[in-house]
């Protein structure tokens, strides 16, 4: 065992680095989903489509700017701008146009409405961007690689994945925590998350909070997609694959919990990377196994609060 560990410690160190970058992306998608659920009590199946559309928009905008001969660094501006545009447009359109009509309906209807949106957005995305893979790796190339020592060898990692992704995720986490705890709007959101009835009874305009949160959540999904676009390739079906993973993260985290989303994204990200080295056969099921294991011990998720009923 000790010998094995010695032999593989270096490799596991590498897995940790990869896991971190992956976890950062997973976190970005899941945290938006989790916030939306916390406030609206709706699991948004179309969240993965927003991720994909954010990615497509970022890649297109980046390529567009590059074609205009703008400097390379504008590629990063494109990432954020595209996310803001997607969130700012689709968020309110979906919330006002569709979701608002079904608040208070049965849970299954709310879930299915977002399933319908998912189906529509998947095809809409295909109509806009076609089916050929779309990618723009300028933001990835610009920062180059960093050589990480590995025994006598070195392993090049991209600076983007090593620093930018975890950095942005961390900044998002800290920023969100600050926003939710220190700003008035944030505290209103928290109040609605913890006790909607009490919050509305206190005169909080829930509709405004819902709109704000959904738009913000959509923006985070789009930002996740935008941040993924330099490393991944955008193809039809990306949204469907993304959303199931986010579900696992959110259920593991405990609903409405942002710190929980961070921890479970880390667990799942690193677990997956480690699996690639240790048990590649299990790589795909790692997120689900982690989720089932966590929920067996803590049925309300890592950070979820048990709701007690008064009788």
């Amino acid at each position, binding site marked *: 065992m000790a010998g094995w560990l010695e032999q593989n410690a270096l490799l596991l160190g590498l897995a940790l680095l990869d896991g971190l970058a992956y976890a950062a992306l997973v976190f970005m998608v899941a945290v938006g989903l989790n916030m939306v659920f916390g406030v609206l009590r709706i699991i948004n199946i179309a969240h993965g489509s927003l991720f994909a559309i954010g990615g497509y928009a970022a890649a297109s905008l980046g390529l567009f700017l590059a074609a205009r001969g703008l400097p390379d660094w504008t590629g990063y501006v494109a990432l954020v701008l595209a996310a803001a545009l997607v969130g700012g447009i689709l968020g309110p359109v979906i919330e006002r146009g569709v979701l608002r009509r079904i608040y208070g*309906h049965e849970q299954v209807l709310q879930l299915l409405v977002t399933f319908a*949106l998912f189906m*529509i957005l998947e095809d809409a995305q295909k109509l806009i961007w076609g089916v050929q893979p779309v990618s723009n790796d300028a933001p990835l190339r610009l920062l180059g690689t960093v050589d990480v020592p590995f025994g006598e060898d070195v392993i090049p990692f991209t600076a983007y994945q090593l620093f930018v992704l975890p950095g942005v995720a961390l900044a998002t986490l800290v920023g969100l925590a600050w926003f939710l705890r220190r700003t008035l709007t944030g505290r209103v959101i928290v109040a609605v998350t913890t006790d909607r009835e009490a919050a509305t009874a206190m005169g909080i305009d829930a509709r405004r909070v819902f709109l704000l949160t959904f738009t913000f959540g959509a923006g985070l999904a789009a930002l996740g997609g935008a941040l993924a676009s330099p490393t991944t390739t955008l193809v039809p079906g990306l949204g469907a694959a993304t959303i199931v993973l986010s579900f696992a993260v959110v*259920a593991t985290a405990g609903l409405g919990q942002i710190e929980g989303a961070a921890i479970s994204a880390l667990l799942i990200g690193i677990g997956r990377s480690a699996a690639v080295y240790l048990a590649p056969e299990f790589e*795909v099921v790692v997120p689900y196994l982690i*989720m*089932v294991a966590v929920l067996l011990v803590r*049925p309300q998720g890592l950070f979820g609060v048990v709701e007690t009923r008064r009788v």
Partner: protein
Amino acid sequence: MRRGAEISLALLGVAGVLAAAWAAPWLRFVLTIALAKGIAVLGILLLLRAGQVSFGHALYLSSGAYVVAFLAPSLPEALLLLPLAALIAGLIGLVAGLFLARYRDIFFGMLNLAISMVFYSLLEKLYELTRGTDGIRVEPPRVAGLALTLEAYVWAMLLVALVLAVGFGMLVRAYLASPMGQALAGIKTRETRLEFMGVSARRVLLAAYVLSALMGGVAGAIVGMTTRHVTPLLAYWTTSGELVFIAILGGAGGALGPFLGAVTYELVRVYAAAAFAEAWQAILGVVLLLVILFAPGGLWGMLLGLLGRRPGRAP
């Protein structure tokens, strides 16, 4: 809805299916698949009655289909494969249900999803066993000992599906009206009261869950024997979504809803795919959206509305 009216509607449906199948050969296949999915959706309906949404019933559909795929070579008899698929899917449902019945709402939905996705991954991973995405071909088994011509086999599968659809429809109808079914509805509104009446809500849900898994298995077996080729896509989460879609489209009111929904779903998909091959998914999405926003009672509710009745609760 009066019992008599419902029976006449069911008979009308059976006659309609047979007439359509007689007139248009390709519909035999599509209707068989629709009836099979309707049977699976009956299971979704049971769980919906408890206020629980399973986003993972593709697990049972696909396990039924794979039971057929694995056993058909050594046991080529449809009438044996069907109960075996039911049994095995029911057993999987029992094991999963013992764990899942502890959870409610979104956790219930997501855990179902997780378990079905693990199963889906296994179907793809265990390539030696399942041939991965290539899937397993199913030779047409005998039906009641008879080796049928392919034409007769297609008819036989339709009739088997029809008989099972009617049978399970009646079973679910009785179940929903029974104390177990009514207690199921109690889980949705006041689970704690059930406990304070000495009834284990978990067991009430578990029983319904196992029944839903069993029906999923039967449906999968029919799908497997009808398509005669089984692939892991049947276990993907979008298939589960499709089942819930059909449940809502049909309307969660009565046992006829799932079949109404399934037939409509398959036909809309065919028409949409024929008219806009690249955007059938969006069209289905729009249909779903319209149903939810403007006819939340589903087709069944619309039908009752036409007949001048309010979409009622349990039949």
